[in-house]
């Protein structure tokens, strides 16, 4: 820049040549910038053809107290778990690096096959590299009494996860 300014003689500064040079280089730079930004934006799709985050998981009476149900696991990657306080939908995505853990009833543990993280039924991480508890999805009842699970809302902190909308209280 210093050199360009020096190259122009005194009477040339602020002249038509300088304006045209500015416009020419300016349009070249903005063209290149536009192409770069546009190309980068291209890789972020507007519409995703991914499965919906909300689904219906039957009625509350389908689940027994103390049961870890795997009926929704294959399609929706959640365990439906009914404790004495209520039902919650535990998302089976390991909080370490996103593999699908497996429920082992004999050991009363949830274990991840990828790197060996262990979780309790309430989602608490107890062993392995997982840094935080498993998430619970938002859960509610619709007007006809079906359980509606919404995986786009999730919570894993004790206290918050034990209250609506992350646990469906049942008496």
């Amino acid at each position, binding site marked *: 820049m*210093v*050199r360009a300014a020096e190259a122009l003689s005194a009477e040339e500064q602020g002249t038509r040549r300088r304006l045209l040079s500015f416009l020419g280089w300016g349009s070249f730079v903005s063209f290149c910038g536009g192409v770069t930004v546009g190309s980068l934006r291209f*890789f*972020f*799709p507007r519409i*995703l*053809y*991914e499965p919906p985050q909300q689904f219906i998981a039957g009625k509350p009476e389908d689940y027994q107290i103390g049961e870890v149900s795997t009926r929704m696991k294959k399609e929706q990657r959640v365990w439906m778990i009914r404790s004495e306080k209520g039902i919650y939908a535990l998302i089976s995505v390991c909080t370490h*690096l*996103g*593999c*699908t853990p497996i429920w082992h009833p004999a050991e009363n543990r949830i274990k991840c096959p*990828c790197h060996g993280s262990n979780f309790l039924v309430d989602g608490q991480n107890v062993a392995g590299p997982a840094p935080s508890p498993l998430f619970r999805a938002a859960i509610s009842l619709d007007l006809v009494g079906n359980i509606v699970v919404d995986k786009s809302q999730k919570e894993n902190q004790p206290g918050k996860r034990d209250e609506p909308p992350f646990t469906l209280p049942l008496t």
Partner: protein
Amino acid sequence: MANLSLKNVPQVIVESQVWKSIFRHGYTMNRRNRLLAITNNVFYHILPTKISRYGMRMRFHWGAGIITFYLFLILTFTGVLLMFYYVPTVPRAYYDMKDLQHVVPFGNILRNMHRYGAHAMVFMVMVHMARTFYTSSYKPPREFNWVVGVILLNFTFLLSFSGYLLPWDQLAIWAVTVGANMARATPLIGHEGPFANLIGMKVNNDVRFALLGGTTVGSATLLRFYVLHCIAFPIILTIFIVVHFWRVRRDGYSGDVPVRE
């Protein structure tokens, strides 16, 4: 750096080690340099005009670099052939891979050449880098070519990673799930990384989202990795291979010195 003013910034840059490692000297247009520009031109002479027998000792260079390059050629050739049978869609990818193994004539040997060749290429890149390190071949005047080599290492890994998804079996999906989830923690551009919240990174606008074409590994990811694996990464790798070879030629063979007692 005390007399650093705006005026001599270009000179400071041009005389820095980084600049000089990339551009050896400027265009001094005297007669000698014009002749050197021809005799040193890699397109006219892929090998140097002269080289001593020390530079070609097998026990010095192990041939690791050229073996890596031959493996790349084999992978390009077998990869193009695999493209005739493989369709990167969720319903077909796995079964096309199985067809290649069991139905396509000579398909299994082709697939295995590509698969084991890829493993061997990663291994030979490591061997090549270890040899370069232990013989001090990365030191000036070859420090820029070491940087090019690191770029080549990264693109070898990217090719390996993107190709790993294409069989679309359980190992592929979960390996890429794990690998892509590591990208969540990238500083600034990964939504769980440091400072990412300052620029509003979320699960659907960060670097992992762009890599996967979605929030989970799915059909968009398979297609995206296929295009990157077959088009983008090989072309970029080829460009850097050309630069790498050119610099070997230009900086001189590191073994081309008499062995000191």
